């Protein structure tokens, strides 16, 4: 199913490594709701957004290392915006890490606001293709799962921000 919400994924390579390991995309920024036009008439209710980041495959050494990550959640203003959001990582599948972004209360995206989630991962990931699954509903209907792949934009290393 087509995703109801607009997403933008930016990934920023981490600092260069000392060895010959493949590039590590250390930071992922997921921006949701950045659309602006037309949404106010048909707002989307959202109870969850999940980002699935495949593990690096070209170098199995990276896939076997335990992960260390930092996550940053947006500050929102009201219960309509979800009140608070949380990111819960799922690292149980060595093939991919899933980050579930969950609002404290169902959020109502009406085009007037956006939120961004920041995920930093070590060791990183090497694909620019992530899978997004949302639990959303238009109007007041029941929420349902929708998935799609989203191609990320790779930013220059200088644009790296957040923790470090």
């Amino acid at each position: 199913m087509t995703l109801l919400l607009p997403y933008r994924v930016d990934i920023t390579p981490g600092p260069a490594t000392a060895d010959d390991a493949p590039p590590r995309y250390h930071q992922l920024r997921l921006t949701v709701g950045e659309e602006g036009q037309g949404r106010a008439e048909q707002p989307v209710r959202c109870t969850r957004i999940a980002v699935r980041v495949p593990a690096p495959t070209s170098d199995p050494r990276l896939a076997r290392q335990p992960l260390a990550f930092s996550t940053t959640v947006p500050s929102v203003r009201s219960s309509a915006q979800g009140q608070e959001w949380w990111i819960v990582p799922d690292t149980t599948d060595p093939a991919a890490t899933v980050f579930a972004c969950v609002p404290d209360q169902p959020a109502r995206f009406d085009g007037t606001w956006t939120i961004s989630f920041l995920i930093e991962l070590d060791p990183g990931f090497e694909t620019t293709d992530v899978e997004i699954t949302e639990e959303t509903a238009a109007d007041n209907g029941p929420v349902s799962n929708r998935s799609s792949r989203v191609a990320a934009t790779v930013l220059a290393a200088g644009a790296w921000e957040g923790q470090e």
Partner: protein
Amino acid sequence: MTDTDLIVPVELHALVANRAVRADKDRFKRWSPMFTMMLNEEFKTSGEPEPYENLQDYWTGTGFEGVHLQWQLPEALTTGHLDHDSGESTFPLVPNRWLVVRYATVRGATTVAGWVVHSDYLSSQRPDANPIWDGSNSYLNPYAATATTDRIGRAHDLATGPWHDPREDDPAPRPLFLTAIGSGLPAFAAFAPYHRNVFLFQDTLQDLRDRQHGDNYPPDAMLSYAVIGWYSDDDADILRQAPEIPDLLPPGADPGNLVDVLEALGWAVPDCASGAIRRTRYAGTALGVDWQREGLVPDSDRPDGTSTKFALGHSTADAGAALVAQQTRSARDGDLIKALFHGELGAMDSADGPIDLDEAMRRSWFSGSEGGSLWRVVNRPAEQDTDEPAPELPQPEWLDRLNDHQAEYDQGMAELARLQWRLWSLWWLRELPEKRRPKPFEFDVAAWNGEITAVGEQISALQATLEELQTAIDEFADRELPETQELKRSPQPSFYRPADPVIVMEGAGTTQPLGRPDDQPLPCRLPSALLTRVRIGGADVTPAPDPPAPDLTGLPELCRPLIAELAMLDRAARTGSALEDIVARPADLTDGPFPEYTRVWRQPWLPMYLQWRIKYCATPFRSGGTGQGGSDNWTFDGDDYHWNGTGVPEGDGEGGVRWTSFAGRSFLTPGLSYVLREQAKRKLAGAPDELLGQLRLLQDDFDELDILSQTLDGFNDWLIQQNGAAQVTTDQRILDLAGQSNHVPDAAGDRREQRFQPVRAGQFYFTELHVIDRFGQALRLVTALDSQPAQLAPVRAASVTPDPEKPLFPGAKTDRFIQLPPRLLQDARIRFEPVHHSDDRPLAAVSSAPDPLGDTPVAGWLLVNHLDQTLLVYAPDGSPLGELRVIRTAAGQREIAWNSLPHARYDEPGDFEGVYPHVAGFASELVGRDADTFGLLMTTIDRALSRIADPAPEEDRTPARLIGRPVAMIRARLGLELLGPPLTDPAWDEALRPSAQEYPDYRWPVRLGAYERLADGLIGYYTSEPGQDTSYRQLHVPVQGRDTAAYASAAADDGPYFSLIGTGAGIAMPARSVDRSLSRYLTLLACPHTAVHATTDLLPVTSLAVDADLTHRALAAIRASFRLNPLLAPVRSEEPTRGSARSEPEPANSGIFMPRPSALHGAWSWAEPLVSGDGPPLWTDLPILPADDLSHPDDPVPAARAGYLQLHPRADGQGETR
């Protein structure tokens, strides 16, 4: 105004978040509770985010800007009190209404604004869907029967209308619930992001914008704030609650007496005017807050990170001493800090001082837990003190049964705890959402359920057994005993578990004390005695009767005078240095009690958390299994373990080794400076006058020390995959069986995180390290830019410094690594204890076969007789057995021989093998050996005794001292015990069918004795492998230095008689649970007055000592015997008969003539053997008659005699040596 209100000062912190502060992405690490996710069945996370997760984006948008006001509750309201009956902590209710008043001066005009913070507002009570009714923080509904999420806290802007308390409309208001820990979070009242609009108000300053002036943002302003707090229900007031809170009032305090209550709270009331006080109000101010939206980051005490030093060690003193030694470049300064911290300053000047200090410090590397109990029948304490040792009390025959029950109970409790943990783990994992299981993983729900049922049944059965045992134990308490006796339970040696590593930081920018000193109670005020005058710019200012104020309708009457006070102080803050002057000299420039915490505003920096992320690499104690094919990767040098540089598991991380990552967070405390200050205070009590001043100065210095310390909480738990930091709810369905647990298993749903290591050993380094303050301001101490973190090398105590010659992987610089030597992460203890002298039973088990010799572990006594070059041997009760000496055989060989002593009941050692097996074994093994062995044995004893300090030589007044210091042959048992069955791996792949752990079969060397320690009494020991009879073929001696060669050369044909204890590798014991425990029995040759120490590094040093009364009784019975021959002396007597062989000396009319020794120490007699057949010789014991110069023609002809001069201690003790 009547003084029914007590005004308690609160500290008000005001954090200015202007654009520069807000836009700095590295400045804060803020997170908030996530109870919604905790209760979400699909996630079941912890109630608090994991470190470095779910950090708040505060820099996007301007929502974070403004002034964040946090009021710090008084200590008395944040302290929990343990109810000893229920085992639960009670926290007092705290004020739930707070008025925030702001005076703002913008462009020369001062305005006032106010808000009421409705601290215990719950979203579940919201009247409508309007976002103004959104609660501010994730919370658990306190009134719900089952855990239910809610949100707490809101602020009411008084500009929108007066405050109306909803409780006034409620016909049946529910009881208040708000405490300092909120929904069970210890940091609830302390960490700003946890309690927005509860104990914190963010003033966005948006109301100051003036469109006429084109303000897009709040304009520059000088701000002053006051907060005033109260309970919405007077019945909840702390003054009324206090008597109901268990353990808040000290014993003897009168709950009805307000003075006692206030004293317990640590609050001082002016002039004892407490009669009318009925309730409390809380007040604090923040004055002269300089708001400049486009200004620089305000100055604060937050350092830049590069000036902060941090040190690591096994304990606070360990790390603190390392830091001090490094900073002062003086190891002795480090030792002094260590000594002061442990209260061992006096030890610094003693010969054993460094060793004692080291031992005290090593003890602090562990935390102890109860080791079970042992029952004895003892005499009730005598009404009058007496120096006489109490006679040994015969123990009733039922005592063995009682102690058997108790041992079974203690063991059962440990087993129960393990079963309960297993049940809880299985239950917890089963209930986790599927997504938390590893992939792939086949979850066999039937097997899982079956195991849970089976373990539950085992628990029920064990609980029933334990109840029966407890009942049986209780019944023994009713046994009738003579009035002078009582049954007494005494604790068995404690079990120990290593403490988490400790980090100590200097220069983190805080000197906030741990708490108010007891002698400085919080000065409270009364409404009738507020500030009545302040001097501002040379003029006296008095409070206005009607100061500018927000709408105070419905608010406490006290608000207005406190706002008037704020108005005065705000004016001072806006007038040059008036406020600085007032704060510096309140007595001169103000009238009325000066409110505590009144100061000129400064951007706060209030360190609260230490947060870290480390990379850990295991360097296991052993690789390759416990069999022959395996090998230890660590070597014990007698004091410490050293890594051999082997056994690092291969992996895919840095250096090709396996890493795991651990992040944690814990509360920072100024614990080090607090303890040092308190120790200095203790010293004050007994200090001479000339030192008093210096000690006080020292105390003041410690007050100002900018040192924080913290254990890396949860580190050890993390290694055994347990999580004690998770905020979880205990499932009621399992509570009865599994009990309350504050840990959950970390089953490593991500298999890459498996690291179960019940024997901790490894190295780690920090990839991130932050100090985080009450507002979430962060100070980064380590950067993690790539796999080689650029960081300052931490200062490391010697105990955690790895060998630079043995890096974890080739090329690794060891500066950043902290090494953790092997430690059992399961509670364990060394059982090094005396046992019965002949049959090795525990000394507790004495009643089943009473021993006429008494309940003694001393198998025999030895005395080196230098006069005769003999070794005198006595039975446990001091009765004579024989002497060992060197004789020349017919073949001309010089070898050791045995002679029985006067009145000995046995002829040869073999004769008393059944009664005194160990003395017999010792003597038999020596007889026939060469003279060199004898000489070296004598030298060994002699040198050891000259080294061993006798703690109280003046108390040993026995005549045997005339010969020399006695040596006790002590029977002892040595073993390492684990508390309960071995730990098991809770990982998903192991949890259901855990593999057997091999660590209970690892062998741990135990070094007995300490050659360099004066207060260690060991001369040597005999032992054998566990399960075998003690061998006396080899004496193990603690020898060092030049003497070593002598022992090495003293080899005999059948192997050397002497062996050096060295590092203790000769005694290597496994640590096992009681039901599989392995004991080694030893015969120690030791000074009876001085303890023998067992050192393992694995556990605190343990010592064994012999009961002083036993020693005294036996030594008092020893007759000193001096071989004398030939003696040419006549005897005037009748010959004694065989029956008098053991009788006391004959009457004075018969005796031997010779020069009589001094009678100062007792009576002397002459003993000589009579010719006899088989069996022990008969002895004649003659009094000594003084030779005189008279003629005795009737006397027999003097004969050449061989015998012993014997000294008899007097019964009244007056003959004791002094």
